[in-house]
């Protein structure tokens, strides 16, 4: 894992001192809210529906047990005993008190964490594949480059006041677990014909009001050119991105309006001026960063573990959990474990302080002290010996974290919605809870198979509804909550935007509608065909018929 150097520590500690002074001046009246608001937002502090909300960055979703325990302590001491893991691999606290936030940030700084650039029109926390460094299908660990981008973008003076916020995601595998095609910039590590590793560069994807699948503007960028090329993209955007209309300010609008080819040409021209300068990455500096992400000391183990196989044979619940929550590790004898934060009736992405501590204990004891946050609002233990998987599972079950539903219909992404968010038009979480309860029968969920359902409470699409196999968007119709359903979206390497199926459903009717869609799929699927594949084969018509016939 990356460890702060003196520069990082100084920067973060100075920011805590600075914000402490700003809060003191706000409370004493030297600063009014108009002047204070941009300062608190630069430190991740929002004023939401009920209270202040603090968003804490978890760079590329990686943390260790010490940091997770600190997040638990903060939940307990400064909040109401829980936190909410987000689709940007961050954690949000829903109830902090302004007067206490400086102390909270000081506690975060002690474990090399902060809330800088989790808000505002800057380059936000860089996200990465949550299986980074562990996935069998990986070319290279994307976190090395995510960390390099973090260092380059942190407090970058030229990019602190962009036209709009800016989100970068990096993956090291062909299988896209980081949703790179719906980010402002998506980077995919790949090999060229000569076997060299570089990046495919995707620009101008995004969700929100105007969803777009990002086009590739460069098929292969040498690794050493990463920062100069990113700087060129940001410069073109900073110069030409619209500042007159909030809804047209994201880079996707610029890329779509000039066209990907012309945008790429503008970037290449800018890049020619930057290339070969101070932004070129020296190999020794890349090696220094890469050393932080060196694989943990893996044991040489056989690919199969007889104890693990025996437990899977004997214990049906364990076997079922393994089917969905266990993933192939690059190292024989090891597995990647997903910890579902989607228990039936729970709040997607929420974890109590006790649960965070339980995960920290298991990571420390069995998981090489590493934990990941996934953009699908779950946690991951990336490196667990097969022989320890059963013990970890038992620990998870004891902590109420044993849900065996990764990738299934109840493993929903849900934004906070109208229950917490100032921008929302409708509730998301209770809809997710009702759907999970309707499909509570795990055998039924396993029979349905992979089905990614995503819910947003407004058009800003924090709940990724555009790229859900089934997407649900909450809207306000004359003061009542309604839900528009889309089908056929995907956030993966086969990214697509969902198609609107028809008129919206009321809060009371939306769960029946989802069940009707699932039943329709079960009726028409071919042997082994997943929901998304079936939808792509048959299109909207049968689903529309099921939902609206007779209406």
């Amino acid at each position, binding site marked *: 894992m990356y460890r702060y150097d003196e520069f990082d520590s100084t920067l973060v500690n100075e920011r805590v001192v600075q914000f402490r002074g700003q809060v003191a001046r706000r*409370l004493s009246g030297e600063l009014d809210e108009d002047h204070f608001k941009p300062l608190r937002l630069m430190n991740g502090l929002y004023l939401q529906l*009920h*209270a202040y909300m603090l968003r804490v960055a978890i760079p590329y979703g990686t943390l260790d047990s010490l940091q997770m325990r600190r997040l638990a302590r903060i939940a307990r001491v400064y909040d*109401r005993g*829980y936190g909410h893991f987000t689709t940007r691999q961050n954690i949000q606290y829903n*109830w902090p008190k302004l007067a206490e936030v400086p102390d909270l940030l000081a506690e975060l700084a002690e474990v090399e964490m902060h809330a800088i650039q989790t808000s505002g029109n800057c380059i936000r926390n860089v996200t990465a594949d949550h299986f980074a460094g562990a996935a069998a299908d990986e070319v290279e660990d994307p976190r090395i480059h995510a960390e390099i981008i973090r260092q380059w973008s942190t407090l970058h003076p030229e990019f602190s006041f962009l036209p709009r916020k800016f989100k970068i995601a990096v993956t090291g595998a062909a299988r896209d677990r980081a949703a790179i095609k719906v980010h402002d910039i998506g980077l995919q590590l790949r090999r060229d014909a000569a076997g060299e590793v570089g990046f495919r560069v995707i620009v101008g994807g995004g969700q929100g009001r105007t969803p777009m699948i990002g086009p590739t503007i460069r098929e292969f960028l040498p690794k050493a050119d990463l920062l100069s090329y990113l700087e060129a993209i940001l410069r073109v955007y900073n110069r030409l991105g619209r500042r007159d209309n909030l809804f047209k300010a994201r880079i996707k609008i610029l890329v779509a309006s000039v066209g990907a080819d012309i945008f790429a040409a503008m970037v290449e021209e800018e890049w020619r001026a930057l290339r070969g300068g101070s932004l070129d990455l020296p190999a020794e500096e890349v090696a220094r960063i890469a050393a932080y992400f060196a694989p943990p000391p893996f044991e040489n183990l056989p690919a199969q573990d007889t104890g693990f196989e025996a437990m899977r044979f004997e214990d049906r619940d364990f076997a079922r959990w393994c089917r969905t929550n266990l993933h192939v590790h690059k190292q024989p004898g090891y597995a990647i474990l997903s910890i579902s934060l989607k228990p039936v009736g729970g709040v997607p992405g929420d974890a109590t302080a006790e649960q965070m501590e339980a995960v920290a204990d298991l990571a420390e004891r069995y998981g090489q002290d590493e934990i990941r946050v996934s953009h699908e609002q779950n946690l991951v233990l990336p490196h667990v010996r097969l022989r320890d998987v059963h013990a970890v599972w038992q620990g998870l079950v004891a902590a109420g974290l044993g849900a065996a539903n990764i990738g299934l219909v109840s493993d929903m992404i849900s934004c906070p919605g109208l229950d917490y968010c100032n921008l929302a038009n409708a509730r998301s*979480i*209770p809809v997710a809870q009702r759907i999970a309860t309707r499909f509570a029968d795990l055998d039924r969920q396993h029979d349905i198979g992979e089905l990614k359902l995503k819910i947003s409470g407004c058009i800003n699409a924090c709940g990724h509804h555009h790229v859900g196999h089934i997407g649900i968007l909450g809207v306000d119709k004359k003061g009542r909550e309604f839900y528009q359903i889309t089908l056929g979206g995907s956030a993966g390497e086969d990214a697509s935007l969902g198609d609107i199926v028809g008129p919206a459903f009321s809060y009371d009717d939306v769960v029946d509608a989802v069940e009707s869609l699932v039943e329709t799929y079960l009726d028409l699927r071919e042997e082994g065909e997943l929901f998304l594949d079936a939808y792509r084969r048959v299109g909207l018509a049968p689903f529309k018929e099921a939902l609206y016939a007779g209406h």
Partner: protein
Amino acid sequence: MSARIVTANGLRDGEVLYLACGGRWSRDLAEAEPAETEQAEAALMAIAERAVRCRDVVEAYAMAVTVEDGAPRPLSQRERIRAAGPTVGTDIATERGR
């Protein structure tokens, strides 16, 4: 009967507050003082803006309610949830030991 009440958040703790009789801020929506005329609303907002200047509250605004049996009830779902708290129904959303 339709009316308007004034709400804000506590500056220090962010808590949702309602302007009650006598210029007092209450956590309880039922105690909010309804304004039935534009002048009455302006008078409430003047009190609220002073409280903003005095740094007791932040983000003050007036909102629509109906008044039944003397108790104000928000017209919008947003304000109903803001008054009653999240509807997510799990025990972890409730205050713990603070």
